[in-house]
């Protein structure tokens, strides 16, 4: 099992975009998803219809109630395709034992109406967790994506209804006297008679489930993956491995390997290389060991789906328990809640005499009264603040000009960094043959004067020639000097063409006199 084989882009996403990713996944792996599922559901639908020819609604309800079962087939394909091994239809059908194994009964009974069904399914089916551990895990996963998972289910239900009513409407248009298509959707607001749900309705509903369910399961799975990426930094693991490539963690067995192995527990038999977490040490540990690590729960379940399981694999179990003890698998959350104080008794005893409804309203009124007082206080504070601001002598401190920057164009231009007599220093540098430095000194001197003495504000991102124009506008002497200096400086600095010494010397002579005076602080 290697993260770099993952067939989706690893990146923490917002929950909605994760759901969109799920829709993309379903569309991409459409054939692998729909085929095995159709093979299962169509014969069953046919058999049920033949068995209960007079009760099409019952057939539809049975098919609908068995959705968690279909979801498991879909998730089986999705999980494997995500990790780079899209299974064929035969592989999928042969894996029925592990597809059905943990927690199916719960999902078909008391958790059938779980609003986050698709989002929770991987915990049971891929992580193979059940009982209290699974509950903790689901709570942790829900912390940031629970609302989105529920919204996804709600929307999926409605999309299903859109498909069903849409198809039924076509039926109504095609209806030319022969009762080929049902009246149910068309006459939804009409009277219901005994025939309001026909076998055709069942067929249309089944079609709607067929269209929407893979998208729904894939979106729930994508939401789940996104949460795992968020909690475990899968993308970061790849990037950090690149930083440390070759030198780091060669001998370590990352915890993620166990988690991923748990995610893909079923691959241990069918795809040994994919179940390997550490490509650096091939053959050191049989893949089944990793696959079993996270199987914690009731021993009876484990024996059922993992033939190589030995209950005395205690180090692995200890490691799994250590992982489960980690705060990542569930922690405490602080929640602030208002509680009535004052005359309400601590143990919630009501004073005798008052009616129950009256107390509720009394409590509400008290709350509103407190809110009103708080609101009034806030209003008064706001008014006072506004008055102080408007009428006060010097309401806001005057906006002080920002101190002039110490550098411009990456050159230091604060007066302290420059010699007292710039022109003399430039001449000296020129005499020693450092023509470039001489030019640089002159240029920095001029800029320093401009910014620090004349307090010209140079906008961020201004170019040299823009500064030249600014200078010309501020002080003509400085401007004309800068106008002559700039071409020479640009040629030297950017093109590496240092001008003639005579030209530089002339520039030194013309260096504006103001620079000789020590610049005053602005």
């Amino acid at each position: 099992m290697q993260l770099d084989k993952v067939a989706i882009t690893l990146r923490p996403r917002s929950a909605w975009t994760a759901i969109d990713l799920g829709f993309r996944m379903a569309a991409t792996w459409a054939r692998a998803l729909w085929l095995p599922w159709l093979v299962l559901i169509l014969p069953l639908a046919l058999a049920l219809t033949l068995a209960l020819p007079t009760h099409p609604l019952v057939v539809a309800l049975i098919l609908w109630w068995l959705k968690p079962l279909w979801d498991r087939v879909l998730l089986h394909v999705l999980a494997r395709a995500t990790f780079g091994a899209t299974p064929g239809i035969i592989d999928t059908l042969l894996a029925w034992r592990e597809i059905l194994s943990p927690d199916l009964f719960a999902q078909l009974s008391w958790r059938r109406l779980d609003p986050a069904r698709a989002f929770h399914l991987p915990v049971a089916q891929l992580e193979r967790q059940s009982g209290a551990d699974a509950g903790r895990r689901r709570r942790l996963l829900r912390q940031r994506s629970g609302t989105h998972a529920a919204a996804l289910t709600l929307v999926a239900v409605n999309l299903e209804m859109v498909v069903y009513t849409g198809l039924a409407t076509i039926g109504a248009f095609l209806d030319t006297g022969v009762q080929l298509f049902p009246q149910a959707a068309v006459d939804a607001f009409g009277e219901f008679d005994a025939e309001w749900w026909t076998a055709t309705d069942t067929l249309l509903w089944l079609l709607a489930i067929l269209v929407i369910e893979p998208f729904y399961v894939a979106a729930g799975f994508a939401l789940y993956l996104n949460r795992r990426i968020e909690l475990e930094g899968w993308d970061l693991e790849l990037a950090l491995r690149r930083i440390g490539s070759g030198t780091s963690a060669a001998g370590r067995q990352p915890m993620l390997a166990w988690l991923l192995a748990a995610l893909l527990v079923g691959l241990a038999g069918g795809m040994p290389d994919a179940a390997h977490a550490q490509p650096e040490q091939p053959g050191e540990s049989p893949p089944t060991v990793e696959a079993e690590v996270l199987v914690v729960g009731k021993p009876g379940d484990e024996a059922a789906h993992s033939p190589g399981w030995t209950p005395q694999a205690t180090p692995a179990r200890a490691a799994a328990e250590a992982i489960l003890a980690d705060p990542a698998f569930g922690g405490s959350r602080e929640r602030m809640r208002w509680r009535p104080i004052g005359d309400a008794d601590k143990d919630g005893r009501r004073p005798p005499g008052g009616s129950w409804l009256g107390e509720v309203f009394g409590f509400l009124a008290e709350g509103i009264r407190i809110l009103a007082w708080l609101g009034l206080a806030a209003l008064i504070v706001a008014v006072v603040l506004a008055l102080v601001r408007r009428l006060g002598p010097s309401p806001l401190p005057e906006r002080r000009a920002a101190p002039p920057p110490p550098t411009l164009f990456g050159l230091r231009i604060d007066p302290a960094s420059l010699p007292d007599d710039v022109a003399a220093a430039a001449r000296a540098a020129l005499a020693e043959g450092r023509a470039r430095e001489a030019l640089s000194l002159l240029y920095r001197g001029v800029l320093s004067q401009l910014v620090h003495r004349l307090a010209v504000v140079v906008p961020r991102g201004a170019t040299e020639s823009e500064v030249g124009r600014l200078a010309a506008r501020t002080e003509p002497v400085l401007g004309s000097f800068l106008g002559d200096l700039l071409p020479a400086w640009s040629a030297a600095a950017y093109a590496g063409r240092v001008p003639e010494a005579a030209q530089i010397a002339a520039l030194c002579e013309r260096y504006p006199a103001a620079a000789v005076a020590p610049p005053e602080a602005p």
Partner: protein
Amino acid sequence: MSVPIDQRIGVATPEGIELLLEPAGPVPRAIAWLVDFLWRFGVLVVLAFPLMAMGEFGAGLWFLTWFLLEWLAPAAFEAFNDGATPGKRAMGLRVVRDDGAPLTWRPALTRNLLRFADFLPMLYLGGLLSMLVQREHKRLGDMVAGTLVVHVDTRPPGRRIPAAAPLPPPRPLTLAEARTVLDYAERAPLFGAARATELADLAAPLLRPDGGPAPEQLIRIANHLAGAPSHASG
């Protein structure tokens, strides 16, 4: 293995820059549609009381309002409100042109008037199927108008680098490496302690043997990269 699946698409601009757009799928768009439907419905209900009191003239006005709200209000919102109806805004969506440019009134009107093509004859089934099979999740109106519905802000919510004393990395980092370290620091609080350590240990070349716990070192390096003020300069 082929190219990894991603819901986001790249649009090349004439300047040779690739813009990354994240087209919104049916689920967020359906919720946005519901929000829009509800506010329109609410407005109509509220208007019904005074207008019905005005008799037939009021009823006429009411139907006119209904027509405008149904067909023109969404287009107006999209054209003049940064491509978002109130529902889209609530869901963080906006409509842009295919090349990522802002929406103008003409495509806005087109895509909204063509909503009937998605709606009829199958009560939005056509639009839904069109959205399901296309990578850009376009409904028919989007295809004609050349528009896309995209997520505005696709970053996961609220992340900051935990404050720590900055520590320069032992060697200059490449851009990708610096991004990785910053990303790690932002997300480290979400990982369990063991997982945070395990991840940080992977970046061994950036860690000093005597510099304390690995996650802390990486977070300090991230503070350095992010330009956090050191203690000396305040």
